[in-house]
């Protein structure tokens, strides 16, 4: 019996649940993580000799609770800690007897992580650490933040949760939609950070896109009547379905328009469509459902051989009205170019030209370049491609943009 493998399996499956259970009761995420880390260490030390317990989760929580008590004693805080720790003991007795499963508090933990009092930039990292057990270095790498800095931000965020008394609670109906949106945004941020490594070619590092989908599935399971949660999962599954089509056999980047639908994952698309259908039946449209609907329209090419760009324009109209997002405006301009021509698309991009945020936003320049090329303005297109290339950090995407720039020269050889 491989104790290490079993402990590893329990860790992966239950880590978030165990952190959530303890944190929801003590309101102290950091203390919960530390106590659990010690509990896992104890498991690796004792299970080989004593055997794997009948209810491993309860065993781990019992040990973790003891560590929490020890820590409280060392800090000489006992008055506040005691009542909660006593409560935990009672629940654990039931769980250890096999009478009751450990309650799943992950939803409450996720709402705490995405609480308005928590800085927006640290919500996704916090979720990755508290629910999935990522360390600060891995999270830092993903979000391009120095590990030490990320570590500090996480420590501060968890301290905030503890000291500001941020509740571990699923919000009341009147604020649920807004608060849920923050949770979904954080999950989507996890997913999109993982998107640059579409093949997940690094087996030792966990693929963030997969983790984003895992979190999306979790929240969709825990809140099945929340259409935006279903919408987010549908959106991520649609994108994930195209993962392998995004790379040619030679490892080059393949844009959506050039992808072979035969390489899209049918099962994932079907699952996404089913989710979108369920969500739309609830008649509460929102940002993620609309984004998923756009992806659904793209996926329809596998059936019809064409893309319904008018439908996509309408969806982006609705999205722009809801979000006012510059990113949506760019995508909308590209869609309009498909229905009304490159000049019309460029006209939509014009008002965005002065937005300071776009000066360093590669997709804006790439979109501009493509439209300028189609409008026949090769010189301006070349300059825009140059900007996009200089701003892109993904080597495969950069190489693709460089090829597009080269094509311009093929078409207009006297271009400098």
């Amino acid at each position, binding site marked *: 019996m491989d104790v290490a493998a079993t402990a590893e399996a329990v860790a992966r499956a239950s880590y978030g649940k165990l952190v959530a259970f303890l944190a929801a009761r003590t309101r102290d995420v950091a203390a919960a993580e530390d106590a659990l880390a010690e509990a896992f260490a104890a498991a690796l030390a004792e299970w080989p000799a004593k055997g794997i317990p009948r209810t491993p989760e309860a065993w781990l929580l019992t040990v973790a609770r003891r560590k929490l008590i020890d820590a409280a004693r060392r800090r000489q805080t006992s008055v506040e800690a005691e009542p909660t720790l006593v409560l935990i003991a009672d629940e654990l007795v039931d769980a250890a007897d096999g009478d009751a499963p450990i309650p799943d508090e992950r939803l409450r933990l996720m709402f705490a992580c995405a609480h308005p009092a928590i800085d927006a930039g640290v919500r996704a990292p916090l979720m990755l650490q508290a629910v999935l057990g990522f360390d600060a270095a891995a999270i830092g790498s993903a979000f391009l933040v120095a590990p030490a800095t990320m570590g500090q931000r996480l420590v501060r965020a968890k301290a905030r949760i503890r000291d500001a008394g941020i509740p571990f609670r699923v919000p009341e109906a009147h604020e649920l939609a807004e608060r849920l949106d923050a949770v979904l945004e954080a999950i989507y941020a996890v997913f999109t950070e993982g998107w640059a490594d579409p093949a997940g070619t690094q087996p030792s590092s966990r693929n963030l896109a997969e983790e984003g989908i895992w979190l999306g599935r979790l929240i969709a399971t825990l809140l099945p009547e929340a259409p935006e949660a279903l919408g987010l999962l549908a959106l991520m599954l649609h994108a994930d379905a195209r993962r392998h089509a995004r790379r040619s056999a030679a490892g080059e980047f393949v844009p959506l328009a050039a992808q072979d639908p035969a390489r899209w994952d049918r099962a994932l698309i079907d699952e996404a469509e089913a989710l979108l259908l369920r969500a739309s039946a609830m008649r509460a449209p929102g940002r993620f459902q609309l984004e998923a609907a756009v992806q659904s329209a793209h996926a329809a090419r596998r059936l019809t051989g064409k893309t319904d760009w008018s439908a996509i324009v309408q969806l982006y109209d609705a999205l722009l009205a809801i979000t006012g997002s510059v990113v949506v405006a760019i995508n909308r301009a590209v869609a309009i170019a498909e229905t009304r021509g490159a000049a019309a698309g460029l006209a939509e991009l014009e008002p965005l030209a002065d937005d300071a945020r776009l*000066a360093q936003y590669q997709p804006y320049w790439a979109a501009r370049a493509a439209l300028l090329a189609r409008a026949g303005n090769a010189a301006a297109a070349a300059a825009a491609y140059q*900007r996009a*290339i200089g701003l892109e950090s993904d080597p495969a995407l*950069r190489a693709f943009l*460089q090829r597009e720039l080269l094509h311009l020269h093929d078409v207009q050889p006297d271009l400098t």
Partner: protein
Amino acid sequence: MQVLLLMYQDEKAMQKLPREEYGKLHGAFMAYVDALKKARALVGNHGLRPTSEARTVRKDAVLDGPFAETKEQLAGYFLLEVPDMEAALGWAKRHPSAPYGAVEVRPVWT
């Protein structure tokens, strides 16, 4: 705030890059510098000639090759315009840290 981005590469591997690859990489570097300029972020940038052309001054000795000790760390730099390597070495020897550390002299691609 001003920040220095120090670019490290495997020289040998870079020298072996096929011409087409190299051309693309060069294009990418040009675009990158352009982007930095447009963002008004670039203060200066320089490519360095390879380590085979480097010399290192320690106390008064001049050694062939780049700095290669683990006990010392990069603390600063000077960029200078002089007629030749001899003159550059002259400045390197005069640096107050030369007796206590090391000063590597590297020709810059112009």
